[in-house]
């Protein structure tokens, strides 16, 4: 009996985690992928590891440390890229490694054994607390609200920023708010997939969606769906096969991407053949 209650709780927690992770990653991921911010997001993710290390060392919740680090580094990179004082990709590369270095130093300096470190690097559903799930749930609500209310404003600013500046003085505020929300979203998902793997949760689903639609709002919806299937399947497989959850999710998502891409290619070839058979080839 005890086993079944534990399993029931685990399934609920996994499904809720998968649901909130796919909603947040679908919304933020569509923004990241279409604005070509994948490398920037990678920088933010890894820089946040510095916050995790300091959190451990100071005895505060590492997620809070990571949140502070990721938002500061995100705003820093956005600001630097606007002011053109340094090459953006160089700035990202430096912050990426610097954050990791700080994290490693502080974790090394922390007395005693740090059992959760692997879960931060590679993700683990077993260490995900109810508070983590609730935080991710709240983040889902915030993002859904933000993207619904400001849908077109967000779309237009990220499509053509310089044109947006001709009619709006809110461009910078929107950019900074959106980037901060995304940094926070990434950090909250680190518990699920880990620092090293979390970014693929944001980049693979939109790329699956973009195989069959180019409409922004539909990319968001399909990303959430693809993300949910991949994440939920990843949890279940990882639990029963006893392999790390983050890696399993990413593996599942890539398999989905390959299958969808393959089906679309085959359908395209069949369609071309059908059209081709009805006409005479002139050349």
């Amino acid at each position: 009996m005890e086993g079944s209650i534990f399993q029931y709780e685990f399934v609920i927690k996994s499904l809720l985690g998968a649901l909130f992770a796919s909603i947040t990653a679908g919304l933020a991921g569509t923004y990241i992928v279409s604005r070509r911010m994948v490398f920037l997001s990678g920088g933010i993710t890894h820089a946040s590891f510095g916050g995790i290390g300091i959190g451990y060392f100071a005895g505060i919740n590492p997620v809070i440390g990571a949140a502070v680090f990721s938002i500061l580094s995100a705003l820093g990179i956005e600001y630097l890229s606007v002011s053109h004082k340094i090459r953006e990709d160089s700035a990202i590369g430096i912050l990426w490694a610097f954050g990791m270095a700080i994290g490693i130093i502080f974790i090394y300096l922390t007395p005693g054994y740090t059992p959760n470190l692997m879960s931060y690097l590679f993700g683990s559903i077993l260490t995900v607390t109810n508070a983590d799930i609730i935080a991710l749930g709240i983040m889902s609500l915030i993002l859904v609200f933000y993207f619904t209310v400001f849908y077109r404003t967000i779309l237009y600013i990220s499509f053509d920023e310089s044109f947006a500046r001709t009619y709006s003085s809110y461009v910078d505020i929107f950019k900074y708010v959106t980037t901060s929300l995304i940094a926070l979203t990434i950090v909250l998902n680190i518990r699920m997939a880990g620092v090293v793997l979390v970014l693929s949760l944001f980049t693979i689903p939109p790329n699956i969606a973009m195989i069959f639609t180019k409409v922004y709002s539909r990319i968001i919806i399909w990303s959430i769906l693809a993300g949910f299937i991949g994440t939920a399947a990843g949890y279940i497989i990882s639990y029963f096969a006893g392999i790390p959850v983050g890696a399993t999710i990413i593996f599942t998502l890539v398999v989905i991407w390959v299958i969808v891409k393959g089906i679309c290619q085959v359908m395209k070839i069949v369609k071309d053949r059908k059209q081709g058979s009805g006409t005479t080839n002139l050349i």
Partner: protein
Amino acid sequence: MANLLEMHSLSVSYDANVVLQDINFSVSESDFIGVIGPNGGGKTTLLKVILGLIKPLKGRIVFNSKLINSNSIGYLPQISTGDVNYPVTVSDVILSGMMIRKKIISRMSSADKKRTKEVIDNLGLSGMERTSLNELSGGQLQRVFLGRAVIGDPKLLLLDEPGNFVDSTFENDFYEKLRDLNKRMAILMVSHDIGMISSHVKSYACVNGELHYHPSSEITNDQLLAYGCPIQLITHGEVPHTVLKIHN
């Protein structure tokens, strides 16, 4: 005819590099001004000052309250500013021009939809509402961006090198559209290709650091009629030139 904007002794510089020097210039309601000059002469900078994207170093720019209170300024940038691989459809892009009226919009109202449809039909893009930008030809892209510039019905339309992407089949049509728009709004068109615009604009502003304005009266109707065809080349005196013989 009321002036829409006036520039008084306006200078603009990027760091130490002065791009525009002591500009005195005005645009009035039914103007169709061709802004010509060499690359790096400050043509685009002139547009950016009007749009408020660059602050002048010296002097000032005064807008008529009619221009500020109405639907502001329509702008067709050089095409490279938007990412054509961005997942956005033709009607999305054209609707974004409504932002000059609304500042922040979240969804399309039925009035917006109707207006967008009108603009799309008017530009000959019917049936392409849901097409994404990377499936369009250069000429079609140009029309989409023109649609974005005019959907808000601005009082002043700024065009930056519209000739760059216009295919020859659409060229006459494009300038016909501009002439039509000019009935409702003033147009300021930047081009380095004088031939392209000479038969369409009413007056010229030559920009090369400084700005020299040539009103339409300098190019008289008699001169135009004497050729019996659109004039393709207008230039200042003492320009070294060679005209080749007509082939037999």
